[in-house]
């Protein structure tokens, strides 16, 4: 929902009378609101008025209070909070830089190239690792600059900020995993805390952007936040907890979902017995019709999850989705597949730990026979021999996979036979829609027989679960 940009004059007119402060700030605030709207937050005029009122009570010289006052009035869900923080940083950083460019202010007291040349890369590495382990932000900021200077001297800069950040990080040998090859006194040996690693990367990014703006004397065009910024964490083990929390939330929403529609949508089925009973009050005349309550659909679910290497990062996410579904739906059977298929329902009922699950799968399942590449055709056939007799129109089949066949025959007709027997079939693809049907992806061959969703953010997942539990078929 890209909102049209409004001229500043309107903003000044809007707030000119209400704010005692300079009109400049009110105008900035409206611009900031516009920016937030552009990222999908619902910011009404009343919210902006609240923000102005709040800022009149808060001293502006404290960044954190300023931010807290704005976020209390503008961002009103945890997700909005996250977006707000990203936009806040970007907006006020850009505003400051814009002013600096206009006034021709240049950063003084920076590190000059000669001083940087004196620095030993190895010494720098140790210093940074130490500062990170100690969590010393000030020192980290200084060292970020030093390392950029030292890195620039090596002449490996690519000119693209994101790439440079990663190259510098690698050149410094900073990793969150333990590095056992290093000497014991090196603070990097035990792995750098993930939080400080992220903070350091953010500092590098900021410094690189600042340098770029100074060099070019102009701001780069504002880039809208991409979905990746808000995407689900996938991959590292700790983030699994975050995914679980999201899914737990989802589960609670699921439970209450059916009731929201109560009252607004009348069900068509008349409950004859209750109507008769109610009619006794009115002397046997059925004045008040009683309807059967709407029950949320609790389907019988079969889940097939791809665990091959091409979906490694997504399968952590998928497996935790499986967990959550197991918690919510009693009648559910899960299967994992690569080249062959294997039922893992028991494993999921027993284990909660992702590592234990993947170990158990690796040990017992025997899903990867020869090449370790997915063979969808074979999987369909094996799935049919396993459960075809159990499939019935109230069953739901969910496939989690990227539909990359590695050049093998997709055998869509076998898949079609499964979908014909099952009531509904969904396909969750961890790839953005943009990449569908590129390379060896054959999702369109399967999508003809099922409902295919892209699923790589919480929002996608939530949309999907809603579709799954909705009592009626979606209009498709």
């Amino acid at each position, binding site marked *: 929902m890209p909102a049209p940009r409004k001229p500043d004059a309107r903003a000044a007119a809007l707030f000119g009378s209400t704010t005692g402060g300079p009109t400049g700030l009110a105008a900035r605030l409206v611009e900031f609101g516009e920016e937030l709207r552009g990222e999908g937050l619902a910011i009404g005029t009343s919210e902006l008025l609240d923000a102005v009122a709040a800022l009149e009570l*808060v001293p502006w010289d404290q960044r954190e*209070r300023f931010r*807290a006052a704005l*976020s*209390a*009035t503008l*961002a009103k*869900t945890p997700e909005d909070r996250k977006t707000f923080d990203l936009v806040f940083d970007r907006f006020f950083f850009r505003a400051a830089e814009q002013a600096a460019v206009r006034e021709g202010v240049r950063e003084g007291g920076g590190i000059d190239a000669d001083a940087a040349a004196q620095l030993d890369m190895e010494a720098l590495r140790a210093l940074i690792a130490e500062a990170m382990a100690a969590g010393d932000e000030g020192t980290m900021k200084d060292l970020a600059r030093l390392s950029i200077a030292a890195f620039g001297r090596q002449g490996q800069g690519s000119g693209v900020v994101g790439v440079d950040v990663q190259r510098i990080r690698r050149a410094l040998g900073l990793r969150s995993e333990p590095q056992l090859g290093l000497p014991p006194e090196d603070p990097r040996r035990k792995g750098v805390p993930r939080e400080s690693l992220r903070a350091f990367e953010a500092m590098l990014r900021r410094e690189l952007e600042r340098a770029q703006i100074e060099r070019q004397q102009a701001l780069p065009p504002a880039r809208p936040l991409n979905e990746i910024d808000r995407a689900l964490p996938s991959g590292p083990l700790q983030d699994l*907890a975050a995914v679980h929390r999201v899914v737990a939330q989802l589960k609670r929403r699921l439970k209450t979902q059916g009731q929201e529609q109560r009252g607004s949508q009348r069900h068509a089925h008349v409950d004859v017995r209750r109507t008769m009973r109610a009619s006794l009050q009115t002397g046997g005349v059925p004045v008040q019709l009683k309807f059967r309550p709407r029950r949320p659909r609790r389907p019988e679910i079969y889940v097939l999850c791809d665990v091959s290497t091409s979906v490694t990062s997504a399968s952590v996410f998928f497996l935790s989705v499986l967990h959550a579904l197991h918690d919510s739906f009693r009648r559910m059977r899960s299967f994992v597949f690569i080249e062959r298929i294997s039922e893992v329902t028991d494993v999921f009922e027993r284990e*909660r730990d992702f590592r234990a699950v993947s170990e158990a799968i690796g040990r017992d399942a025997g899903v990867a026979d020869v090449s370790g590449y997915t063979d969808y055709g074979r999987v369909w056939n094996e799935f049919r021999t396993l459960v075809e007799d159990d499939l019935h129109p109230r069953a739901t089949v969910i496939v989690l996979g990227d539909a990359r066949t590695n050049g093998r025959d997709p055998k869509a007709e076998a898949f079609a036979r499964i979908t014909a027997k099952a009531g509904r079939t969904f396909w969750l693809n961890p790839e953005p829609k943009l990449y569908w049907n590129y390379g060896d992806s054959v999702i369109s061959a399967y999508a003809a027989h099922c409902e295919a969703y892209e699923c790589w953010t919480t929002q996608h997942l939530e949309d999907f679960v809603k579709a799954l539990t909705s009592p009626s078929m979606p209009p498709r």
Partner: protein
Amino acid sequence: MSTVPSSADQVAAGLRGAGYLPAESTALVSYLAVALGKPVLVEGPAGVGKTELAKALARSLDRRLVRLQCYEGLDEAKALYEWNYRKQLLRIQAESDGTGWSDVQDDIFGHEFLLTRPLMEAIASPEPVVLLIDEIDKTDQEFEAMLLELLSDFQISIPELGTITSTTHPIVLLTSNNSRELTEALKRRCLYLWLDYPCLEHELAIVHLHAPDLPETVARKLVQLIATIRELDLKKPPSIAESIDWARALLLLGATDIDADVFASTMSLIVKHRTDLDIVADRVGVKLRAGAGAGVAPEGA
């Protein structure tokens, strides 16, 4: 000392005096709520002190706390007001013959026959109060819609009596565990406060406040352990309330250190799911054992 505080620092000091250690943003939003007279929607995981904040705010401002606990099926009769129909019936029966219906009608729909419920109580109270609407997400959307008039104008319309407007401005806190998406209309009228698990030092201070006799080293180890446990993938991570319970239990047991044995015997205070217990015993208990094994005598002594 029911004075209106004039800065966020004053609110923070007041809350601290009332036995609640607020984070920076908590104090700021509370101050804004008092100064702007807007309701606050407080969200966050269970047990981070959402309800406690309202209580502490009431104590620090020296106001009465009116609490409305929400649940599914809560309706106006239990939240707003109800006509005391028994009394109304008695009144009608006690009436001598000859009194016209209109006289009686004027009479029985008066303040005398009104049973006030929490929301009405907060509005009609002669001295300012703090109104806590707890777990608003448990109610249905219809109830939320009913709250809108109250939250924006601090008034309640009763068909038979007219509109009752508050004479004093209550401070309203709504808490939610986010089990349901609240309506935009409700959010629009509120300031938003997200309470999260506190950082290490902050939690240490909280533990100190509630269990002042616990040795510093034990308290520090306790909050570190809690922080580690929260990072695990649990069904219900331990909250601040659990930290405090644990600290008190350790104090009661006279523990001077949290070693593997103490941890194993008191673990059930902080983790309350069978599967969670297994995970925590597996990850944290073993680590403690390995850490202790180096210096102290082996287990079983």
